[in-house]
C-alpha cells in the first residue's frame, strides 16, 4: 500500500509572501557575512535581526493588521476603523476568522452604507409613508421597468422552459462561463447600445453573476496581492469592495478636479504612478468607468488614446467599466475602449472591458455581468474563475429571448434614454432653483452636485455634517463625495432614477429646508 505523502500547496501566490520578504534580507546578509566588511557586518546584522523580530511578531499576532489607508484623499468615515476592530474572540474562545473577514466588518459604518440602511428602515412612499427617507443614493434605474415587465408578462414562461416545458434543458450543468447563445445575444446588445460603432466577439466574453464579480475576477487575473490599480477619483463606493476585499490588491486614487470638469489628466496619472512607486507598490493597471460614476462624464477619444499611451509606456493593463454605456442621455458621443483598440493591434492584450445588464437593461436582480477581454490568457483564466459566480440557467434562457427580440430592444433603448434625459434635465433644473449647480453630465443615473457653499467648514468634516443634515433633516439619502474619494469637499451624488416625476418637487422642497437654514 503506497502512501502518497503530499501537501497540496499553492503555486507561488500569496502563500509565499513571507518567505519572499525574508529572502530580501537574507541574501544581502549572506553577502556581508562572506567577509565584505566588519563595519557593515556590525550594523546590518542587528538591523536584520530587528527586522526578523518584527516580521515574526507580525505573523504570530492574533489580530491581523488593518488595511493600509490610501495616501491622498481623506479616508472618510474609515477613520472609525480603530473603534470598529472586532475582537476575534467570539463566545467561549471560538476559532478566529481571517483578516479578510475582519476587514469586511469595518465598512458598515461609512455614509454610503449608513444611508442605505436608513432608507430601508424608513422608506418614503407617497401614500403610506410621505415622511420617509427618499432614496437618492442608489444608482438603479426604475424609469423603464414597465417596458421590461410588459415583455415578460407576454413572453416569460416559454422563454425559460421552452415550448415543451422541459426542465432538462436548463437544469443540467451548463458551461460555467455562460451559454454561447447568451454571449451572442449580449455581444449584439452591447454593440447596439454603443450605436454600432464597434462589434463585440462573443468568444471573448465571460458571463458572470453581475459586474461586481467581473471586476473582482479581473483584479485576481491582472494583479497579485499587494499590487495596485490606479483609479481616477471620484469613483463609486463599491469599487473599493470589488477590487480590494478578497484579492489584497490596493487602489491608488488619481484625483480629478472640478477645474478640469473632473476629467482625467495624464499628469495626474504620472504623479499617482510615481507615488505608488515611492510607496513600493507595483501598479498593474488603470481602472476607468466610462460613463463615469459618480460624475457622469464621458471619456473623449483623446483622453482614451492618452490613457492607452500611458498604459503602453508603463506596460500595464486598462480595465474599462462601461456598464452605463446604454444609459447616456446627452448629446456627447460615447467612445468605447473597444473602439480605440480596434485600430491599435499590439496593445489588445492590455485592454479589458466590464459590462453588465444591471444598469442598461435595468435588471440588477438577475445578476448578469460581462468580462470582455482581448487577452487570450486572461480569457482562459477568467473562464475558469467564472464557476464561482455563474449566471443562473433559467435567467440566461429568459435573457436570450429578450435580447433577441430586436424590436423590443430597439424601442427599449430609445425610450429609456429619452426618459433618462427628461428626468435629468428636470432634476438639474430643480437644483438650480436652489442655487445648486451640477457638473455637466452625459450619462448615468445621477447628477454630481456642488453643495460646497452650503458647508459650514470647507472640509470633509463639513461635508459629512451637511450629509447628515440632508439625511436626518431633509430626509433624503445622498452620497457624499468623500465616500467616492473626491478630494474637493462639498460634492454630492444624487440619483434621480428611482424617483417618479412628481417626486422631484418634493425632493427640492426638502433640500430647501437645509439650504435656507
Amino acid at each position: 500500500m503506497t502512501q502518497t505523502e503530499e501537501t497540496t500547496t499553492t503555486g507561488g501566490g500569496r502563500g509565499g509572501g513571507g518567505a519572499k520578504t525574508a529572502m530580501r534580507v537574507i541574501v544581502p546578509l549572506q553577502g556581508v557575512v562572506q567577509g565584505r566588511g566588519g563595519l557593515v557586518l556590525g550594523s546590518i546584522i542587528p538591523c536584520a535581526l530587528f527586522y526578523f523580530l518584527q516580521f515574526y511578531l507580525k505573523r504570530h499576532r492574533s489580530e491581523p493588521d488593518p488595511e493600509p489607508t490610501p495616501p491622498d484623499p481623506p479616508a472618510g468615515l474609515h477613520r472609525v476603523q480603530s473603534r470598529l476592530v472586532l475582537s476575534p474572540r467570539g463566545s467561549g474562545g471560538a476559532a478566529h476568522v481571517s483578516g479578510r473577514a475582519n476587514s469586511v466588518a469595518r465598512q458598515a459604518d461609512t455614509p454610503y452604507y449608513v444611508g442605505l440602511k436608513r432608507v430601508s428602515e424608513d422608506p418614503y412612499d407617497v401614500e403610506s409613508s410621505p415622511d420617509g427617507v427618499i432614496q437618492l443614493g442608489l444608482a438603479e434605474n426604475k424609469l423603464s421597468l414597465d417596458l421590461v415587465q410588459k415583455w415578460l408578462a407576454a413572453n416569460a414562461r416559454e422563454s425559460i422552459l421552452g415550448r415543451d416545458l422541459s426542465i432538462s434543458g436548463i437544469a443540467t450543468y451548463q458551461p460555467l462561463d455562460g451559454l454561447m447563445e447568451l454571449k451572442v445575444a449580449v455581444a449584439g446588445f452591447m454593440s447596439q447600445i454603443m450605436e454600432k460603432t464597434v462589434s463585440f466577439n462573443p468568444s471573448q466574453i465571460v458571463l458572470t453573476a453581475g459586474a461586481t464579480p467581473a471586476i473582482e475576477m479581473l483584479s485576481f487575473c491582472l494583479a497579485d496581492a499587494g499590487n495596485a490599480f490606479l483609479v481616477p477619483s471620484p469613483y463609486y463606493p463599491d469599487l473599493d469592495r470589488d477590487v480590494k476585499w478578497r484579492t489584497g490588491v490596493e487602489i491608488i486614487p488619481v484625483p480629478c478636479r472640478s477645474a478640469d470638469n473632473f476629467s482625467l489628466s495624464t499628469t495626474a496619472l504620472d504623479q499617482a504612478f510615481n507615488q505608488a512607486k515611492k510607496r513600493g507598490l507595483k501598479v498593474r493597471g488603470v481602472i476607468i468607468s466610462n460613463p463615469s460614476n459618480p460624475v457622469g462624464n464621458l471619456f473623449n477619444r483623446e483622453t482614451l488614446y492618452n490613457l492607452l499611451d500611458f498604459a503602453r509606456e508603463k506596460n500595464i493593463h486598462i480595465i474599462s467599466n462601461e456598464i452605463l454605456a446604454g444609459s447616456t442621455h446627452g448629446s456627447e458621443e460615447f467612445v468605447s475602449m473597444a473602439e480605440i483598440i480596434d485600430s491599435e493591434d499590439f496593445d489588445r492584450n492590455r485592454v479589458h472591458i466590464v459590462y453588465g445588464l444591471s444598469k442598461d437593461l435595468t435588471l440588477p436582480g438577475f445578476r448578469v455581468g460581462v468580462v470582455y477581454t482581448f487577452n487570450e490568457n486572461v480569457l482562459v483564466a477568467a473562464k475558469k474563475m467564472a464557476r464561482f459566480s455563474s449566471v443562473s440557467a433559467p435567467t440566461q434562457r429568459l435573457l436570450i429571448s429578450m435580447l433577441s427580440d430586436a424590436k423590443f430592444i430597439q424601442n427599449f433603448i430609445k425610450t429609456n434614454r429619452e426618459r433618462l434625459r427628461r428626468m435629468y434635465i428636470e432634476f438639474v433644473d430643480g437644483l438650480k432653483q436652489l442655487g445648486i449647480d451640477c457638473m455637466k453630465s452625459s450619462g448615468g443615473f445621477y447628477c454630481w452636485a456642488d453643495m460646497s457653499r452650503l458647508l459650514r467648514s470647507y472640509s470633509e468634516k463639513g461635508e459629512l455634517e451637511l450629509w447628515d443634515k440632508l439625511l436626518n433633516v431633509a430626509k433624503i439619502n445622498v452620497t457624499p463625495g468623500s465616500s467616492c474619494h473626491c478630494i474637493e469637499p462639498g460634492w454630492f451624488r444624487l440619483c434621480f432614477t428611482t424617483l417618479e416625476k412628481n417626486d422631484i418637487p418634493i425632493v427640492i422642497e426638502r433640500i430647501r429646508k437645509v439650504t435656507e437654514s
Partner: protein
Amino acid sequence: MTIEVEQPSVELSKIAVSETHGEHSPYFAGWKAYDEDPYHESSNPSGVIQMGLAENQVSFDLLEEYLEHHPQEASWGKGASGFRENALFQDYHGLQSFRNAMASFMGQVRGERAKFNPDRVVLTAGATAANELLTFILANPGDALLVPTPYYPGFDRDLRWRTGVNIVPVHCDSSNNFQVTPKALDAAYSRAEAMNIKVKGLLITNPSNPLGATIQRSVLGDILDFVTRKNIHLVSDEIYSGSAFSSTEFVSIAEVLESRDYKDSERVHIVYSLSKDLGLPGFRVGTIYSYNDKVVTTARRMSSFTLISSQTQQLLASMLSDKSFTQNYIKTNRERLKKRYQAIIGGLRNAGIDCLEGNAGLFCWMNLSQLLEKPTRECELDLWNTILQEVKLNISPGSSCHCSEPGWFRVCFANMSEQTLEVALTRIHQFMEGRKTNGGNLNF
C-alpha cells in the same frame, strides 16, 4: 544594423498563470475525451459513456410535473408589483421567502431531525462558491484546511486557487472503509505544524464524494471533539444529503450539534446546494448555513460576488415551500437512486468487481486494485486510460481524488438513462472477460 527592442508583453497575476485550478488532471482530461466522442443511444452507440459527472437526472420528471401543474411559478406569480421588486432585488440577504424555503427543505431532507433558522441561511451561486467563500472567511493566505482523502477533485481549485489557502490531506484507507479516525486527524494536524502551516479548519463531505457513503454518528462525534480540541472550524459539505438512499442512514452534523445542545457550535458551518439533490446544477443555488453570527454577517456581505438571480429565487421559493411536493420528491428520489445503485453494484459484481459498500450519492467507489500490475499511481492511470480509450467509459481515477491507495475509481450512475447504464455494465463485463482469457498478462 537596427536593434529591435521587443516590448515585454503585459503580465498577468500569479493566480492567473498558476496551475492551482487543477484542470490538467485526468479528472478533467476524461471529460474532454467524452466531449469529443459522446455516447448516444442511436447516433453514436460506440461513443464514450460519461461516468465521471456526478449529476442527478433520475427525477426530472417530478420537477416537470410540478411546473406543469403550477404554471405561475415559471412566470411572475405575484403579478406586476412582484416582478418590479424582483427585477431590482439585489439584496444580499436574499428573498425571505426563498430563505424560508431553503431552511424548510434542509430540515425535511434530514427527516426533521434538525431545524434550520432562515436567518442563518446565506445564499451563493452554487456550492462551489460557498466553499470558496467560507475558505476566504475562515483562513488567511498560507493557512490550511484539513480534508480527508479521497476527496472531490474540485476542492483543489475551490479551496486553494484564489484564496491562497493550502489543503493538508487527512489520509484514510480501505482497512476501515476509508473512515476518518482521530489518529489520522491528529497525524495530519501534526504534519501541518511541522511544515509551519496554521490549520484553520477541517472540511468534511457528508455523504462523502467519492466514497458514496455517509459518515457514521460516532465518527462525527470524534470529528467534533477534534475540532473543539484544536480550536478550529468545521465545514460540513452536505450537498448529497438528499441523495442518501434512506433518510435514517444519513446523520447531519446539525443533529450531532443538537444532541450536544449546540455547545461550541460557532465553529460549525454547513454547505448545501440544490445541484445534486434536486438535479438543478444549472440554476446555481448554494447555501452556507453557519452557527456563527460573525461568519453569517461576513458571508452575507461577501456573497455580493456570487448572488443568486432573484428570478431563480422566486421560481424556486414556491416549489420548495410546497411540502407535499418536496416530501414526495425526496422520498421518490432516494428510492430511484437506491435502485440505480443496486443495479450497478449487481452488474459490477457479476463482472467480478467489488465496490465499497455505499449508501448515498450519485456514484459508487469501485475497487480495481487487483488489476494493477504494481500498486502505483502510474499503473492506476494506465488502467484508467485503457478504460477510457478501449472500454470507452470515462470514470474518475482515485489518484485525482488524492486517494492514498491506487486502484480505486469513482463511477457515476445517475447522469444517464437505465439503458445507457446497462450498456456501460455490458462493456465492463466484456472487458473483464477479456482480461480473464488473456490470463492476466495485460500490463497496467
